[in-house]
């Protein structure tokens, strides 16, 4: 099948003209209810249809008794919740209804045993004959924010964005979408491949590489059968977009029988690491690292080099962050250039660190943070910045707001309200300055504070999120994300020349 045709089939999965829930249920505990509920509740833009045997009404949708009652050409996606035996008939009727590529994520048809496998093979062959794209079974569904589509049997529905998720495990779709909700960095498409009888994670990754709504692909994979084909997909995708991969089963593979030592040293985990390095895919070792790498690719520019400056308002954070940078041999702690030090000297009392990490040491006044940040980010010997100390004053402001002395809003008897407003405004301003400078200079500026987790409503982290960026929960996590940016930038630079 041609690339264009394949692409069109996948596009219809994610942007269908209409959706049918086959086997809609009146019982709120059943998949046939939950999926319909989620499609309606998340505001899907196309028409929604449902079928069930008794033609009852579910959530205001008058169900058709059978798919054959559906008008032609109104829907492209069937979410199949019917018992397994009906599926073949369902596919035939769907094909007759002009489903461009009807696709079906049947949630619970995976049956063990020889009969189950035979049925599955027949279904796949039939779908292929009819030109139907089959997703699953045992997946949890499809999310596509450009279509406001949440055809899933589980929460959440994430904010809109440009990360495309494909997972061999439905749970990890949920995890990544939850991370998306927490950070505010959104999702374009998400799909779980389930048993992947007809469509697998690499198929979706190939689609994402061509999908204009997706700027980064994020995958969870377990067992890999056709390694060479997976490696080729990684290469194709990573050549055009960042591809972040979390692989399960990383520690399972041990030694292989071989005459020499190479066999026992070249474990399958190390081989997979090599495949990622060779193809340009970003391998992450934990779920949060994977999501944050993807979210960073989606929201920060790639650095031109690996020289990192740390800007902090307090000593310890800067020191520990510098340690983390030095530990990663892909990063270099930038040596503070003389002219930059002189320029910062103009803005701060002499107690500041006068080296990198740039510790303002409490010497800052109203405009110091944005001004120093600008000097650092604009300097040609700095490729990236880690920005620490955001939100401290706004956190104190919160305590003053809640401490019992704040008074009635507008009657500032203790003078607290004025200072609270000032601190909150300032921290929001610092976050905005970081985002604006990052865009203006084309350099990554990563802001990290545990306040993003402890008090997500803090004006600092809130403004980072409002600027569309991740407020990293620790400097270490920001540094790890930066390592992934630097590695990808280097991969592209080396292969371009």
């Amino acid at each position, binding site marked *: 099948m041609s690339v264009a045709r394949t692409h069109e089939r996948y596009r219809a999965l994610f942007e269908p003209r209409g959706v049918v829930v086959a086997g809609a249920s009146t019982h709120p505990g059943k998949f046939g209810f939950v999926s319909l509920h989620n499609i309606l509740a998340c505001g899907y833009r196309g028409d929604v249809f449902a079928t069930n045997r008794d033609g009852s009404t579910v959530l205001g949708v008058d169900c058709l008794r059978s798919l054959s009652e559906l008008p032609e050409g109104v829907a492209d996606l069937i979410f199949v919740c019917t018992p397994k035996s009906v599926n073949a008939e369902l596919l035939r009727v769907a094909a007759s209804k002009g489903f461009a590529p009807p696709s079906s994520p049947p949630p619970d048809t995976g049956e063990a045993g020889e009969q189950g496998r035979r049925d599955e093979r027949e279904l796949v062959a039939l779908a292929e004959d009819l030109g139907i794209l089959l997703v699953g079974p045992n997946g949890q569904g499809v999310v596509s924010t450009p279509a406001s589509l949440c055809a899933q049997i589980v929460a959440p529905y994430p904010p809109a964005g440009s990360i495309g998720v494909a997972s061999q495990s439905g749970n990890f779709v949920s995890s990544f979408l939850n991370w998306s909700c927490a950070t505010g960095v959104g999702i374009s498409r998400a799909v779980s491949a389930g048993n992947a009888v007809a469509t697998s994670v690499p198929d979706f990754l190939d689609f994402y590489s061509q999908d204009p709504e997706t700027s980064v692909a994020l995958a969870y994979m377990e067992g*890999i059968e056709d390694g060479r084909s997976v490696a080729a997909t990684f290469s194709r995708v990573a050549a055009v977009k960042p591809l972040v991969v979390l692989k399960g089963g990383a520690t399972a593979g041990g030694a292989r029988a071989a005459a*020499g030592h*190479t066999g026992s040293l070249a474990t*399958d985990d190390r081989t997979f690491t*090599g495949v990622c*390095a060779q193809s340009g895919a970003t391998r992450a070792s934990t779920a949060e690292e994977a999501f944050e790498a993807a979210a960073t690719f989606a929201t920060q520019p790639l650095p031109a080099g690996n020289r990192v400056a740390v800007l902090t308002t307090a000593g310890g954070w800067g020191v520990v962050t510098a340690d983390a940078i030095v530990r990663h041999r892909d990063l270099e702690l930038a040596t503070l250039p003389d002219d930059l030090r002189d320029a910062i000297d103009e803005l701060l009392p002499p107690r500041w660190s006068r080296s990198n990490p740039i510790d303002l040491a409490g010497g800052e006044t109203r405009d110091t943070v944005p001004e120093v940040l600008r000097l650092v980010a604009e300097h040609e010997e700095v490729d990236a910045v880690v920005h620490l100390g955001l939100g401290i004053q706004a956190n104190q402001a919160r305590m003053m707001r809640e401490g019992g002395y704040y008074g009635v809003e507008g009657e500032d008897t203790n003078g607290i309200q004025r200072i609270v407003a000032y601190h909150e405004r300032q921290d929001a301003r610092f976050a905005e300055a970081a985002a604006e400078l990052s865009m203006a200079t084309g350099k990554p500026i990563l802001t990290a504070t545990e306040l993003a987790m402890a008090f997500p409503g803090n004006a600092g982290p809130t403004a980072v999120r409002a600027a569309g960026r991740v407020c990293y929960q620790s400097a270490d996590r920001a540094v790890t994300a930066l390592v992934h940016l630097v590695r990808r930038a280097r991969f592209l630079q080396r292969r371009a020349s």
Partner: protein
Amino acid sequence: MRRTLSESDSQALLATYGVRFAPEELVGDPDSAVVAAEGFGYPVAAKLCGENIAHKTERGLVRLSLRSAHEVRAAVGELLSAALPDDRATGVLVAPMIRGDRELIAGIATDPQFGPTVMLGVGGVMAEAVADVSVRLAPITQLDAAEMIEELRSQALIAAFRGEPPVDRDALIEVLLSLSDAATATEGATVVSADINPLIICGGVPVPVDALVEQQERR
């Protein structure tokens, strides 16, 4: 059907793909061993050579730092009489002692999912424990090979080390590219695994000293 080649056959095969081994000579008796040793200059190493000899070190079938005709004659005599029928010994390999403080290992492994791979690691007796290894799918490019070297954690071993210059990266890249060629060759039996072990860093130059190749007939 898989077959492990003898050391000399293993070396000969890899040499056809461009791996340049330390010189050595296969001899059948102690007197020829002495002639070979005098040709190389002392000290030399001697080891029993045969298709089926595994665990050579454990069985005492490798003799190092032989410094005179007398020592060579004695050692080679012992090695020949220690050979068991199952070893299918073809003689004794005499080679100049290649000395260096650093040992690497390079090879080919066939992954059940990903197929032929090229591997580079820190070698020596603690190779498995250290487990500092980089792997790539064959074929590899020159850039892949350079990045395999970069990926090793033990960069201190690649840089200047104990009075010796840094590892000659270009020479090491050549070894890896030769292995890649061997792993992807379409003629003859398939190389399913290969070890260049040790790959001794001698004055900064990686010198392949020993090899073991396992082949499988093409179907």
